[in-house]
């Protein structure tokens, strides 16, 4: 396990009382790794109109926990594995079936939620997991999980460097992308797998109720601020990261004392409100 104490020392230099505690330093490092990943993937989620897809993956988290209980696999391993499986499954059905994608996702969504509830209704002592699933639990993140997030961060950075143009091309017209030399199936599956992993970690951070917001709100805000497709990437990164930092530190203030996940999303929504004014002004200038 890498020694993260120099990073924690660096965080403790931020002049905020709440950041002097180790669990807060871990939580901050966790969200600062997770938020940029979710924000950048959110750009593609919006391009592909896949908001409902990420919601379905998020809801499969609880079914993953339930499956872990049955197979005696630790929940923190069962959840991401099951999420990837569901993500790839939805993508496969979506590619092969004539059904519209929201119908396919709706069916999988219902199946995974029903499965999770069925298992929970029989099992004892999963109340804490249920709470974690609904509201998120970033404050209990461990160094091992932060290490995994850092690896995922690097993988996603490489993926975005190689695939950003290709994914944009696929979103605009998959047939055109294929004829123009993009390996559409490969990129779609890779995207679904990575998205599933990031969504599962985001469920830990903000809970299933807000997981889609973590992807969508920064990316939608970026669309309003940005003047180019390249700029959209950087705006999403900025909005996601600043929301995560501000949300986490605000939630730890005594005068506020709110759930950290919900506060992060609220800050992002404030960004979005500001972006609406900017988009309105820009739109008036263009028209």
């Amino acid at each position, binding site marked *: 396990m890498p020694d993260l104490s120099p990073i924690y020392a660096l965080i403790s230099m931020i002049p905020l009382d709440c950041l002097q505690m180790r669990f807060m330093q871990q939580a901050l490092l966790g969200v600062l790794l997770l938020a940029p990943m979710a924000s950048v993937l959110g750009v593609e989620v919006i391009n592909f109109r896949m908001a409902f897809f990420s919601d379905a993956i998020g809801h499969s988290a609880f079914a993953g926990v339930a499956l872990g209980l049955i197979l005696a696999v630790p929940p923190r391993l069962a959840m991401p594995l099951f999420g990837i499986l569901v993500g790839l499954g939805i993508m496969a059905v979506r590619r092969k079936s004539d059904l519209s994608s929201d119908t396919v996702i709706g069916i999988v969504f219902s199946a995974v939620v029903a499965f999770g509830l069925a298992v929970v209704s029989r099992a004892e002592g999963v109340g804490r997991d249920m709470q974690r699933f609904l509201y998120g639990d970033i404050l209990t993140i461990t160094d091992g999980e932060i290490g995994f997030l850092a690896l995922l961060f690097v993988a996603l950075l490489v993926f975005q460097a190689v695939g*950003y143009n290709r994914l944009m091309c696929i979103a*605009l*017209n998959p047939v*055109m992308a294929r004829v123009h030399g993009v390996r559409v199936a490969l990129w779609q599956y890779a995207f679904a797998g990575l998205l599933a992993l990031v969504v599962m970690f985001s469920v830990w951070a903000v809970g299933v109720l807000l997981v889609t917001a973590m992807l969508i709100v920064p990316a939608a805000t970026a*669309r309003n601020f940005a003047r*180019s*497709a*390249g700029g959209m*990437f950087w705006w999403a990164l900025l909005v996601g990261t600043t929301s995560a930092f501000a949300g986490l530190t605000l939630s730890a203030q005594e005068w506020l004392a709110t759930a950290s996940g919900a506060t992060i999303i609220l800050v992002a929504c404030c960004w979005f409100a500001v972006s609406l004014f900017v988009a309105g002004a820009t739109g008036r200038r*263009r028209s």
Partner: protein
Amino acid sequence: MANNSLLAPSVCFENVCLSRGGNLILNNICATAPAGGSTVLVGPNGAGKTTLLLCLIGEMAYTGRIQFAGLEHQPRMAYVPQHLIMDRSLPLRVCEFLALSRQRQPLWLGLRPWARSEGRQLLQMVKAEHLEQSRMGDLSGGELRRVLLAAALGRNPELLVLDEPAAGVDVRGERLFWELLDAARHERGFTQIMVSHNLPLVAHYATHVICLNKTVCATGAPRATLTSSTLMELFGVPIHLYPDQCDPEDPGCPQCGVVSEAEGLLPNYAAIERREAARMNARLASRMAASPCEPCSEKAPDQGGSRA
């Protein structure tokens, strides 16, 4: 910006069949798209035109063979779709769109100077250089189609496939699109296969036509193929593109068709006016016949003369 005229393939469809859910969509298609030519697939909706294109570009599984004669490798293809799947809020600029499939560096690290300059040249080819910094979502239908054409030409294709590329564009925009496409094909010499419903423009610009209605009804040069009998078989309505080829007589068509042979594309307004005058006269004559007491009833104009 190379000329591929010596490299362009001819495309041979050999016994291509495709059925879906028990329905035969393509039935034993045998046709050829000549090298360096402009081949247009013509036929009613549901005739299998787009399906045949999708087979050609490898999007759909079929039986039979599609061969590219004159090339030892698979031809470098480009595709111009009918539309893009995007909404107006996407801040994708035209110059970025043109760099998407040519520049490896992600757009978030900026446009490379060569990509920017090549994009500008492509836009000049389609008379859209003023759109370089525009958002894709702000383009009109005609502008968008020209930008899509520019993106396809950017691949320097040996085979260009277009699926109703100017559908929904106004008359002027569609005419401009065909003109630009024709000029690009002559300059670069690629083989072109497209689907179109605009028969006058097909008659004017195509070098080869394949009439399709699940099976090949006719194939060949436009003038030999787009006869009124073939078009009647395809569409079930009388259409006369060439006045001297009106096989079945159409009583509503003075001189067999309202499309002037000289103009090629413009309606023969003189013929239309003569026809309308004849109808008016016929109505007048019938009114006069119904009231014989009026003094001029015997001077009703001659109907046959008005058609002359």
